[in-house]
């Protein structure tokens, strides 16, 4: 969300792009008027609640009694809360392993689908399909059944002599299951990769072939740098997305984050604190901490991006 305007700003500021003359006035007024219903909704339903949650994060609000100001208490107790620390660990594990794997899968499939072959349209739809249904409740339920005792996964692995039993009830396996679920939903970044791949001029590859470059060389020296803005975009979006995982964890663990806290993701714990334990102030503090941390991570990404992301029109 915060990402795309920045990308376009950088592209727009390139010298080759002529700047359009400003034409404000009545048109703008019509524009803003059309925007008004959305803007009102945005202020009333997003900005307003965010500000009030910032206030509540400094209180002991419990949904019933008037909130009482307690300063930074919520924020300081967070770091003595073992379940909070556990939820941070679980979430980081998911982000650090899940996101790169998902992007790798997305890029690999996108490159396969980029070649000219008969029926590519069908394959593209087929590979995108899991993402359309993947976020839904039903898939999490199917996933739970697949990875249960004597489910298809257990039986399949047993056939090869690997007896792991059900993954759903085993605290050491649930993270692997959750990561597989997210990797399987590679469709959205894949489509973006595919669009990016199509932008790379084919003559670059032809020239490289003439010079005797192999596929690995071509990938490292042409595809990767040419695709780097798209990779950067996907990496950022998927990382932010991964921090917010909720629905699938909620369903697979029956809303408890089990077994043994192995699927106690950050947002799930936030939800439990807020709506099961009625500790809205505490939950608000958690929410704001997440906003701040994700903001910092985004900032770090942008800082490091200078060294590896190449925009067309850049002189580097």
């Amino acid at each position: 969300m915060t990402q795309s305007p920045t990308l376009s700003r950088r592209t727009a500021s390139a010298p080759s792009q002529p700047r359009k003359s400003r034409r404000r006035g009545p048109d703008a007024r019509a524009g803003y008027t059309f925007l008004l219903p959305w803007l009102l909704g945005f202020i009333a339903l997003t900005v307003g609640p965010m500000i009030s949650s910032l206030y509540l994060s400094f209180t002991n609000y419990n949904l019933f009694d008037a909130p009482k100001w307690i300063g930074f208490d919520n924020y300081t107790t967070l770091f003595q809360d073992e379940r909070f620390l556990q939820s941070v660990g679980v979430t980081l594990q998911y982000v650090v392993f899940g996101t790169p794997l998902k992007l790798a899968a997305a890029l690999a499939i996108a490159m396969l689908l980029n070649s000219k072959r008969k029926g590519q349209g069908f394959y593209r739809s087929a590979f995108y399909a899991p993402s359309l249904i993947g976020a839904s409740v039903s898939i999490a339920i199917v996933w739970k059944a697949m990875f249960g005792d004597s489910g298809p996964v257990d039986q399949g692995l047993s056939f090869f002599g690997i007896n792991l039993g059900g993954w759903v009830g085993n605290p050491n396996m649930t993270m692997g299951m959750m990561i597989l679920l997210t990797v399987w939903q590679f469709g959205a970044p894949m489509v973006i990769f595919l669009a990016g791949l199509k932008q790379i001029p084919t003559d670059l590859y032809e020239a490289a072939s003439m010079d005797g470059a192999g596929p690995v060389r071509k990938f490292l020296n042409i595809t990767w740098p040419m695709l780097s803005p798209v990779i950067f975009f996907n990496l950022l979006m998927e990382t932010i997305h991964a921090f917010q995982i909720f629905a699938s964890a909620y369903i697979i663990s029956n809303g408890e984050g089990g077994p043994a806290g192995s699927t106690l993701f950050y947002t799930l714990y936030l939800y439990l604190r807020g709506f099961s334990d009625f500790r809205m102030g505490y939950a608000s503090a958690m929410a704001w901490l997440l906003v701040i941390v994700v903001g910092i991570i985004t900032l770090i990404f942008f800082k490091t991006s200078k060294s590896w992301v190449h925009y067309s029109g850049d002189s580097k």
Partner: protein
Amino acid sequence: MIDRRKFLTTVALGTASAAFLSACGQSSSSSGQTGSADNPVSITYTWWGNDDRAERTRKAIALFESKNPDIKVNGNFSDFAGYWQKRATEAAGGGLPDVMQWDLSYLRDYGQRNQLLDLGTVKINTDAFEKSLLPSGQIRGKTYGIPTSTNAFAVYYDPAKLASLGIAEPDGSWNYKEFNAFLAEVGAKGNGTLFGGTDYTGIWWNFNIWLRQNNIKAFTDEGKLGFSKDDLKKWWNLTADLRGTGAIVGEDKATQLLPKSPFGSNVTATEVTWDNFMAGYLADSGAKELKLVPVPSDDPDNLGLFLKPSMLMVASAKTKYKDAAARFIDFMVNDPEVGQIFKTSRGVPASKTQRDGTTFEGTDKLVVDYEKSIEKYLKDAPEPPIVGFGTLESTFKRVTQDLNYGKLTVDGAVDAWFKEAEDLIKQNA
């Protein structure tokens, strides 16, 4: 010619203001405290439960409306977990339904925070109730809930499964050592396919009963914990030798069976829980017959048992129709025909009028007979648990699960639970 920009502006403004106006139009207020047959008042009623309970409740509501043509009842239900999240948000917005089915665990959370109507201020007949039962709906002298029905703790077992293993049926006169030996025997003979039971130390109410057997109060009158870390340590150590053996079904298995219980899934031969789960277990497991016996106790004269309101009827403190709400509650807890509709699916009816007007047959009779058989051991129902009890109860279960996964030692589990409990009591002080 109409100027294009002017046209656009007008259209946009028009759309926006229409949306705004229609949003305002919905807040017309209704008036009137009482209704008449021509102009009945509408009250809202919400409950948790499955389709079976929904069907029975609809019948009861229809009966109420036919007897009270000046009141209309709009019903709404959900499952137990989602139920409390909905009530929490409604309470925050000041929009709780007029009448609600309630659970003891949440009575203080809402009652003490002035969300529930003091039913002592309205007319509800409680003459037909056991005097020992009513205090469980009261907090500091005010009545917030009227019990619809009672349930008691029991050990369920499946006689067919025991017979197939060649194990004699228990008679319920056992101490904890004997009960453990029984579970271990089932586990040993069940050979990995049938387990003794679930870890009974994971259920708060079972711990509460054990405390009562040892004459310890779970909570003090000031809302503090009435037991020590050592007590809890002793409790969780009761099954220390059984965890990880066939006597107790592993958490990894139990987790996967959710939302069904291991007992309902025919994975265990016994289960220690409330006696009104009978119908549910029968339906889930498909067993021909399930039997109930009392929980173990090291003191044969003190089983620590009590009748708990399996559910209560409460009204919102903000209801505009106190009189209609009171009449509906009175009807639901006292009317014999309502008893005939629900049988024991809400528990055994608490009001004698309703109980005597209900015929119990088959499994319903089993539950009623069980509660009769333990009558001489029954003591006063516990006070409504402390604020935030729902969280303590679920933490109790979660910590025991970690014990069973081997993620925590008993000492670690005790520390973890006490930390959470003390933090919560401090929060709500």
